[in-house]
């Protein structure tokens, strides 16, 4: 079973929410759509669900065009980021709701509801109302309700974004267990956080401004981003991009800093390029590129150091706490082997060998 989308477009008030999306999603697989806010992730999910019809393009499920099928006849479930449950029904009734439309025998319905409740960890809460539950518990109810139908397509729109960090980690693990245990449905999960995609280690679709920029495994997208846009989206903090050139002497960054040409970039012809490096590969050293600190963001036990050398601005992701003051001088070293090179059109010219 596969969900095939062809050239989907949708504009609202002149703004393109979907701009020619084409992709194939296969049964039993787990997909993560990564993109910043307003990239069209939710619009795409809505199109899959049938909630918003695309202006042009087709969506077919196993060859059958879905355009004629109304929302309530489709085999789709959705979990929202806002903890959506039916407030007037108990947890049990919430989970049972989709099944009640199907007129199952009471015993069958009961066993299915309880089985799912067990899987999601809600057995002791079945009699409660959603209003009496915590955020995490409410999302479990929403998840249970979406699983109980056994629908062909299970959509999750940034479901963990409103939960605190610890809960997010915990639920992510539980999601992975539940998802890997089933192989009937197509699972689509959206997030604005590329690290989440990497943690899930799933098949990734990178979206930006309504367009699909790259499709591939999370690792491959991270190691070989197809364009500078993908490079910036699929990295948190975004990949450092510095315009420069390659000439006989080596690499020139921002027409200022000269670096020896690393081996993996040997094959590139001389000319202008945009070089990229992950913040994690920017290091402090005793001597290197003299730079000035613009901002030191301390986050937990890590530091994001924003530095500047002439026109070149970089962010270094350092583990440890470094409380540098504004304007302090530091020496920056860029590991040559970790450099990416993009053509001035944004396309990937060369990537580090061992997966960045």
């Amino acid at each position, binding site marked *: 079973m596969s969900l095939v989308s062809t050239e989907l477009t949708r504009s609202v008030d002149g703004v393109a929410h979907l701009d020619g999306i084409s992709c194939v999603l296969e049964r039993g697989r787990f997909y993560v759509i990564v993109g910043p806010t307003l990239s069209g992730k939710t619009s795409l999910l809505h199109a899959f669900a*049938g909630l918003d*019809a695309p202006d042009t393009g087709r969506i077919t499920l196993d060859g059958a065009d879905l355009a004629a099928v*109304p*929302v309530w006849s489709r085999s789709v479930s959705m979990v929202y980021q806002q903890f959506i449950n039916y407030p007037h029904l108990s947890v049990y009734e919430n989970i049972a709701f989709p099944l009640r439309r199907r007129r199952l025998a009471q015993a069958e319905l009961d066993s299915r509801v309880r089985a799912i409740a067990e899987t999601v960890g809600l057995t002791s809460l079945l009699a409660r109302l959603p209003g009496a539950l915590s955020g995490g518990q409410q999302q479990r109810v929403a998840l249970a309700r979406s699983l109980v139908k056994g629908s062909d397509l299970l959509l999750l729109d940034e479901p963990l974004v409103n939960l605190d960090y610890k809960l997010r980690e915990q639920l992510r693990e539980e999601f992975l267990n539940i998802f890997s245990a089933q192989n009937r449905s197509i699972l689509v999960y959206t997030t604005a956080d590329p690290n989440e995609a990497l943690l899930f280690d799933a098949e990734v679709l990178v979206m930006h401004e309504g367009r699909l920029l790259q499709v591939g495994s999370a690792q491959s997208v991270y190691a070989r981003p197809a364009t500078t846009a993908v490079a910036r989206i699929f990295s948190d903090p975004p990949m450092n991009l510095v315009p420069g050139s390659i000439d006989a002497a080596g690499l020139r960054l921002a027409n200022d800093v000269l670096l020896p040409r690393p081996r993996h970039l040997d094959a590139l012809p001389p000319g202008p390029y945009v070089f990229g490096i992950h913040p994690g590969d920017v290091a402090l050293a005793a001597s290197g590129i003299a730079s000035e600190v613009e901002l030191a963001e301390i986050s937990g036990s890590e530091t994001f150091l924003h530095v500047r050398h002439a026109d070149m601005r970089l962010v270094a992701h350092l583990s440890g706490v470094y409380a540098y003051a504004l304007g302090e001088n530091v020496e920056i070293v860029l590991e040559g082997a970790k450099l990416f090179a993009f053509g001035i059109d944004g396309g990937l010219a060369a990537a580090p060998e061992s997966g960045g």
Partner: protein
Amino acid sequence: MSVDRGKLVFVLPGLIVLVAIILFPLLFTIRVSLSSWDVAQPGLDWIGVTNYLRLAEDTRFWESFGRLALMALGSVALQYLLGFGLALLVWRDMRAGRFFRVLFLIPMMTTPVIMAVIWRTVFHESLGPANDVLRLLGMASLPWLSQAGLAMTSVIIVEVWQWTPFMFLMLLAGLLSLPREPFLAAAIDGAGPIRTFLRVTFPMIAPISIGAIIIRLIEASKIMDTVYVITSGGPGTATETSSYYIFIRGLRDFQIGYAASLSFTYLVIMAISLTIIAKVLARAMIVKDRAA
């Protein structure tokens, strides 16, 4: 998509009812205004704009707008001041006030006509408590209902009694929905109660103030029951508002064609005036906000 068919089902019944019951009278009124329908000659004939020419010279009609403006603006202004004042007094300690809040709500719920009937006995010059209270305070009795200015005042008093609760309710709800932070900031900055009110409270509640005032102006301009019972438009025509005059022409004299032209003119004037007032208020309150 089949959602489209569903959408119509929801709105259609309501829309049909309203179009049939409101649009029809409006179009009918316009058509009738171009006829000379009255008791002597019932029926739709065509006399063009004769009725409108007549009303252009009908000073009684134009004067009624002045009276209407005085009555509506006067009573709404008082309602706003009193309602706002009461809301300000009560909003900080809501727990204790349930009895008073219900009490303050009651006048708004009562049938205006029926309360007007009671107020008429109150304002009775010799047998009513209004003059009794004045005598107790050492003042002279006032001819509440038989002197032009006082008659207008009596009506305004009744209107204020009846509708101040509306302002109170709207402004109280508004005050309660305001965020606390600006007030805390003002307190930290050392602002006294008056300054806090002028610079923080009033500007923030401006949109609700405007909404409440507009709604009350719309309703006040329709005033009918109270005037009918208490003064019957009198003495003379002292309290005759536009809609009362239309009532006299249309449902007493049965000059239906002429009344229709009066109605249509009145609607156009009201729609324009209210829109202007709304815009002016909005600008006034927002300018005040920016200056603050």
